[in-house]
């Protein structure tokens, strides 16, 4: 019977550990190489000021992507996030300039994010519409709603909110980065240390088998889409604070940036696999690339070409490494 164990084609434990780390590790190495290359090409890259700039932009993306990570591990996709953000940003800034104190505005941010998350979640779990189609529909509905609410730019006037978006702790660390850190820690804890997180991985891996094992798959799905909506709302509002104005077209056309980052981070489109650490690295890599190209005064359109190329190369490396192209 000993020979039977061998036929299972199982790698020894140590190597499995390493290959488990593989994706995260290679992303981290890629990021490191990128930083070295940029530092050698531009004297401005490796400065505290610049790195904090990268973090400032990366932070908001990370907040949005952390929720997307949950829904994508579940095997769903949320492309309505930027539209959710636009509605939240617009309504909350309007609320703020109508005289509401900043803390009430923050409560509204959470409520609006939750509300739109619940709408997506209901369509996906109760009406059983495929997530990508649901959010394709709600993306347009939310975007249209944003334009209907106000087809103009609304300036942020509350100094607290401006400070939230642009301010820095001790003049160095952006507040948004601190907020992102808290959000990431919460999502990390949820995914890795709670039964809810384990269920997300289980349902993403095989919804039917999870359901038959007595897991309330619908509830797990519901909560995941609510989380995705909540983080989208928060991100959208922080963008408004950072820009200093809420726009109905905020984030339009860049819906796929978050998804790119998450996929670059190694989260499987079919669900069940992936880590939050991958998502974070994915975002940092994309932001660093853009930042470097900007420092080198490369055309913005060319930056888009590079971002797309990087995503494809990363996925290609993954395909080659997994041996899917080889005939045994």
């Amino acid at each position, binding site marked *: 019977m000993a020979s039977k164990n061998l036929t299972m084609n199982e790698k020894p*434990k140590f190597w499995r550990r390493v290959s488990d780390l593989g994706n995260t590790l290679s992303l981290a190495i890629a990021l490191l190489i990128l930083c070295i290359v940029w530092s050698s090409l531009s004297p401005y890259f490796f400065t505290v000021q610049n790195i904090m700039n990268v973090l400032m932009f990366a932070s908001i993306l990370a907040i949005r992507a952390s929720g997307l990570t949950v829904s994508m591990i579940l095997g769903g996709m949320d492309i309505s996030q930027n539209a959710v953000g636009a509605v939240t940003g617009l309504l909350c800034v309007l609320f703020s300039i109508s005289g509401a104190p900043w803390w009430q505005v923050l409560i509204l941010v959470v409520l609006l994010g939750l509300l739109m998350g619940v709408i997506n979640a209901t369509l996906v779990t109760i009406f059983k519409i495929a997530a990508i189609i649901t959010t394709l529909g709600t993306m347009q509905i939310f975007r249209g709603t944003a334009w209907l609410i106000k087809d103009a730019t609304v300036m942020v006037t509350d100094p607290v909110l401006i400070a939230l978006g642009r301010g820095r702790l001790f003049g160095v660390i952006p507040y948004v980065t601190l907020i992102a850190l808290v959000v990431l820690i919460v999502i990390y804890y949820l995914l890795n240390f709670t*039964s809810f*997180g384990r269920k997300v991985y289980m349902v993403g891996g*095989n919804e039917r088998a999870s359901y038959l094992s007595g*897991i309330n798959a619908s509830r797990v799905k519901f909560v995941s889409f609510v989380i995705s909506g909540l983080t989208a709302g928060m991100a959208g509002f922080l963008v408004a604070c950072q820009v200093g104005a809420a726009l109905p077209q905020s984030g339009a056309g860049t819906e796929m940036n978050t998804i790119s980052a998450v996929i670059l981070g190694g989260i499987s489109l079919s669900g069940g696999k992936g880590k939050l650490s991958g998502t974070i690295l994915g975002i940092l890599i994309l932001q660093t690339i853009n930042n470097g190209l900007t420092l080198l005064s490369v055309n913005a359109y060319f930056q888009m070409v590079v971002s797309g190329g990087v995503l494809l190369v990363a996925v290609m490396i993954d395909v080659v490494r997994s041996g899917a192209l080889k005939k045994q």
Partner: protein
Amino acid sequence: MRGAFVATGREGVGGEYNLQVRNAVKRFPGVLALDGVDLEIHKGEVLAVIGENGAGKSTLMKILSGALLMDSGEILLDGKVIPPETTPKARMDYGLGIIYQELNYLNEMSIAENLFLGRVPVKGPFRRVDYQGMKQASMDLLRLFNLDYNPFTLVKELSVAEKQILEILRAVSRDVKVLIMDEPTSSLNEVETQRLFGHIENLKNRGVSIIYISHKLEEVFRLADRVMVMRDGKRVGVVDIKDTSSGQLVEMMVGRAITEMYPKEKVPIGDEVLRIEHLSCGCAKDISFSLRKGEIFGLYGLVGSGCVETVEGLLGIKAISSGKVLIDGKEASIGSPIEAKKRGLAYVPSDRKAEGLILIHSLKDNLTITKLDELGKGFMIDNAKAKEYCDTWIDKMQIRTPSRNAIVESLSGGNQQKVVVAKWILTEPKVLIMNDPTRGVDVGAKVEIYKIMEELCSRGISIIMVTAELLEVIGITDRMLVFANGTIAGEFMRNDYDQKTILHMAVKGNENG
């Protein structure tokens, strides 16, 4: 029937082989999957290849079909060497066809289009599809097998059995010389299996050689002329079907004598734990029965007889149209597997890969999936407890795995099934419902699963086993219901089990409908 085909089978046997494999070697990382295997088959012969999971059957077949490259050895077809690197399509052109367990069709296309997939007849300067020619050719093929379908019927409207026959037709239309069939009956019922065997006979008479891979010894005896037994990547032996017995074959497969395939023990039967009254669900109509503590209760019926719907209704997987369920004498409404679990019902589904396990996750994740709520009660999920569960049950069920973190997909069928059973035992169920628990599991592991079932009963768990395998239901259950056409055709106590009566009851009902 057997006499007839022995006669025809012998005609083509003139010492010359249709297909020969010589000294095939295939090495995977860490394993010698094929260790110098030979195989030869005569024209118009059925050669059964049997062996436990992991014996090397599939590897050998994949090498024949061109899906895998062998490290050394050669394949000769009609005396000519086939270049080892030829693709599956090229092998087809040589006349070497394979029908896999998982059938490959385009469901949204017609029978004719599927038959001529990849070589659709065309005519005219614009290479228009010649539907008329395709229809004619398809009808000729269908007629060969006495089938009466419209060639433009969509494949999705056919049953699994019909699709299987379609696959045979596809091979015949390509003028196949040797056809490999990998467990073709795994999803067929008794009647359909009979029909398939008729078609195989037909193929034989046309001089096609058939390599038939199966787990079911019963079928091997009905169909094969010779049997080749494999174990641990080696050919253990080839025997004429006339000169062997199932006992001998099992011994050759396992390498040791299985004194008893069905280790039935005396377990005291207690009070009623579950009662179903007038339950209707899907095609199952007005089903009533009761289950007692420590009992193994069989629901036997062919595919579509209603026994699967009965348990799916009981578990809340499918909505019931009427009837009630009583657990410990109290009425229980069960609307979903979640409630079923709370009421102490556990379910081992028949499709292990799609419904029983999350293949991409580890043994630990799969085993503890039923306990996540309890493990996650504290601030952090209780990993130490999860590990303890795993180690306990890997040991108790003798799950052969490199570690508790092994991905379940890499385990053998029998070990996967043990994981499914173990995850439910963790919930300490009152009733364990097993749907075809030994499907695709090798002989050795089957016996182990039966032993586990006995062990559970002695600990006071009751088991409902749904199966379409007669020998199994007779071998292991204390009491059984025979289903036919969605109703209960009869009930038997163990002492009154009689193969012929039971089979007759199940099949007769089926034909009446």
